[in-house]
Every structure is written in structure tokens, then in C-alpha cells.
């Protein structure tokens, strides 16, 4: 088979639209390949919702955004991008694309024991401010260097540390780990969840101080961080 006819992308119908799986190759080639497919079968693709599976490829937000806009020019909606790369997943989330599909999520670890999953997945370091609308979901611990603004969400299997102002919604121990904690320099989340418990912090008058929230006696309690 000649080089140019090699299958670089696969398209199949799924419940959530069309799943486009990218094979090996240069991003620009793959992008034009996708667009070529769309143009050749424009009546088939018109109004379609596309899920892109990019494997473990790392793709910048601007590349993804460009593809999304080009598809939009052709009346095709790119609504989700699934990837094994954390960076790509994060960039997709920044653009407001879905990154998880309900039944067809590729190779999801099912039934991994909680402890080992946390050890193996370690922690995620986020070095930017999370603005309203951004969401971080991670099975391990999450550390943010920056603020978490109102309207932003962090859902972590482990603990959450925010080196900055915490104003959004955080859920630590989301897989049921009651030992998880939430720490911040200025702990004033919209809502704070640890495992299955939900707390809404009271309005505070005094100056902010570093605090740690944890479950004690079946209650979520925030305590000031004491230097020793």
C-alpha cells in the first residue's frame, strides 16, 4: 500500500457522537487528514459531534483550539478530547472540552485498590491560578501554587494543598479516603468536601491564616496551622 493511503485516523460511531482516533504521525498531517475526511464526506459529518482520541500525544491548547475552530468552520463540533497525557487532558479542560466519556473511556483503571492507586499516581502540581470554570480531577493528591477562584473546582482522590487563596469548591478524598486533608494559606472555599462529608465554612471577620481542614469525630474541622 502506498505511503499516502496508510490509515492514520480511525472513525467510528459511538453513543456520544463520532470517535476519531489518531494514529502515529505529525500533528499537522493528522489535522489535515481529519479535515480532509470531514470535507470529503461533508454530508455525513455535517452537525456531527466529534470525540478526539489522541492517545498519549501532548497537544497544546492552541493546537487543539485551532482544530476545534477549523472543524467549527465545517459545521462539526469538537466537544471532547480523550488522552492518556495529563498535559493534553489539562489543555482540553482549559478549552472547555470534555475529557471523559461515560461508557467508552479508554482503558480506565477499574478496581485498583485505593492506596496503591494513590501511590502510583502520586501528586499533581498545578502552577497557575485556577479561574472560574476550570476543573481539576485527579486520583492522587493535588497541589496548587496560585489561587483557586470562586467557580473553580478541584476533585482529588487524595489531599489538596493550595499555596494561595482557596475560594472555589474542593473535594479531597473523593474516592472515600477520610484521612485526606485540605490545606491553604487562606482557606475560604465556597464548599469543602472530604470523602462523603460536606462543609460550608462560616464567614470570617479576622485576617486570614494558614489552615488545615480534616475529618475529626465525623466532622470537617478547620484548624490553624501552628509552627513548631
Amino acid at each position, binding site marked *: 500500500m502506498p505511503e499516502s493511503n496508510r490509515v492514520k485516523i480511525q472513525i467510528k460511531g459511538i453513543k456520544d457522537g463520532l470517535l476519531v482516533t489518531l494514529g502515529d504521525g505529525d500533528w499537522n498531517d493528522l489535522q489535515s487528514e481529519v479535515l480532509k475526511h470531514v470535507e470529503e464526506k461533508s454530508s455525513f459529518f455535517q452537525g456531527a459531534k466529534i470525540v478526539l482520541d489522541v492517545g498519549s500525544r501532548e497537544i497544546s*491548547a*492552541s493546537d487543539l*483550539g485551532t482544530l476545534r*475552530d*477549523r472543524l*467549527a*468552520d465545517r459545521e462539526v463540533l469538537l466537544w471532547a478530547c480523550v488522552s492518556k497525557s495529563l498535559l493534553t487532558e489539562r*489543555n482540553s479542560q*482549559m*478549552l*472547555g472540552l470534555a475529557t471523559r466519556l461515560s461508557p467508552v473511556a479508554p482503558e480506565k483503571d477499574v478496581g485498583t485498590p485505593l492506596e496503591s492507586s494513590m501511590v502510583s499516581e502520586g501528586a499533581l502540581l498545578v502552577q497557575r*491560578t*485556577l*479561574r*472560574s*470554570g*476550570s476543573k481539576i480531577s485527579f486520583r492522587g493528591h493535588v497541589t496548587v501554587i496560585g*489561587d483557586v*477562584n*470562586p*467557580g473553580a473546582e478541584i476533585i482529588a482522590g487524595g489531599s489538596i494543598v493550595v499555596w494561595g487563596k482557596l*475560594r472555589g469548591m474542593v473535594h479531597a478524598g473523593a474516592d472515600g479516603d477520610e484521612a485526606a486533608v485540605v490545606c491553604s494559606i487562606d482557606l475560604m472555599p465556597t464548599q469543602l468536601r472530604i470523602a462523603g462529608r460536606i462543609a460550608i465554612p462560616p464567614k470570617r471577620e479576622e485576617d486570614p491564616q494558614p489552615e488545615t481542614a480534616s475529618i475529626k469525630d465525623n466532622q470537617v474541622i478547620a484548624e490553624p496551622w501552628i509552627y513548631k
Partner: protein
Amino acid sequence: MTSTVVTITSGKGGVGKTTTTANLAVALAAAGNKCVCIDGDIGLRNLDVVLGLENRIVYDLVDVVEGRCRLRQAMIRDKRLPELYLIPAAQTRDKSAVSPSDMVNLCEELKSEVDWVLIDSPAGIERGFRNALAPADIALVVTNPEISAVRDADRIIGLIEAEQKGPARLVINRLNAEMIKRGDMLTSIDVVELLAIELVGLVPEDEAVIVSTNRGLPVALNEQSRAGQAFHNIAHRLMGEEVPFLDMEDKPDLLRRLSRIIRSGGA
């Protein structure tokens, strides 16, 4: 000649995007720039009304994009200022009539002719917003000192960063000095602290804005208006000048107010 595309956006509706666009365009044109403003709100056009040019529309943005007229034919010249033009939105179509790459191409063409292109983005974070943002060199986020507007501004700033059009710059509109003094309104300091982007404008609440909008005479044409002055200041900051902020967001005590009166009287 370097030409700059500025997109004025906010997320939330009703915070003053269109007013800001119209007045910035007037202020930039008054400072001797050739300036085009584009109404990006296809289907809900307003900018023509605020500029008082509604009755002169023949062709619109969608006509240009779909090739029914030349770019020049859709540019309505404002007779009050020599170098101010408007490209109006179509009222009978919707956002999907134009794509982000259409806007990029349009602005490329305009850039060879004018100094400034201002794009009035529609509210929301969907297609219309992306159309308006695609060609932007500078994204200007307008907000009001109230929680819901600031929340939406934060979301929009995040999206602008994601599209690699950041860092956005901030205009806080409708600051009410009395309410701030009573502690009933967010101060500009509160807003800037949360949004953490460069502040380029503080616009006081001013009844003259509503009056002038209704008459189709942008308030920046009115030399008496404090809001008008604020828009001129923003324009000069965009042009790279250092302009001090109007004194309004802090609580002026009697002494400072007196000293200001004396200073302005002496000058």
C-alpha cells in the same frame, strides 16, 4: 504603521461592553487614530444604536463575510469624527453566520488600512465570543464591581488564557463612589485582587452614559462627563501613555478632597 485589534468582552451581559467599545473608538479617533469598530453581536446588534448610526446601515458584517459587498462598503463613516468607522452586525442572522477564521481574515484586511480595530464581543462564552476573540491582539475584559460580573470575568479571563490571547486587561465600569464610601460595593482593589490582571480603566457610574446612549451620542464626546474622561484615559493607556487613574475608588477624606480642589483651582 502597526495596527492593533482589541476585543472587548465580559462574559456577563449588561456590564457595558458596547458602551466601552463605542467610547473607546470615539476616544481613539479623537486622538487622531483611524479606528474601525466591529459589532460582533450578530442577531442582537447594538453598537450602531449607541453610536447613533443605525439609520445609515446598508451592508453589514455578514454581507462582507459572504461576499455580497466589499469591505469598504460596509464601513459606515461617523460624520462627527473624521476617522471613525463602524462595521455593523447583521440583525437577521445569528452567530453561526460567521466563523473565527472569517474574523481573522477580515481583520487582516482591515489592519492594512486602519490603526485600531475594536471588536464588540457578545455576552457568553460560545461561538460569538470565539469569533470576536480569534483576531484579537489585546483582549479587554469589562466588568462591574459586583460578584456575578466578576465571577464571569474570571471565567472569561481563563478562556482568553486558554486561547493564548492573554494576559487580558481589565476595565471596571460603573463604579459608584458613594456606595464604595458606604462599604456597599466592591472596590476596584477587591476586583483586581481576585482577577489578578492589569487594570487599564476605572469608569465611574454616570447618568450621562444612559442619556448619551439613548441619543446615540457616545459620552466620550461630552467633555463634562467624568465617564467620558475615563474612556479617553483608557484610550491613551492603550496607546502606551501613562495616565493616572481618576480618583474615585478610594475613600477621599476631607483633607485630600480639599487639596484636590486647591490643586485644580491653582492649575
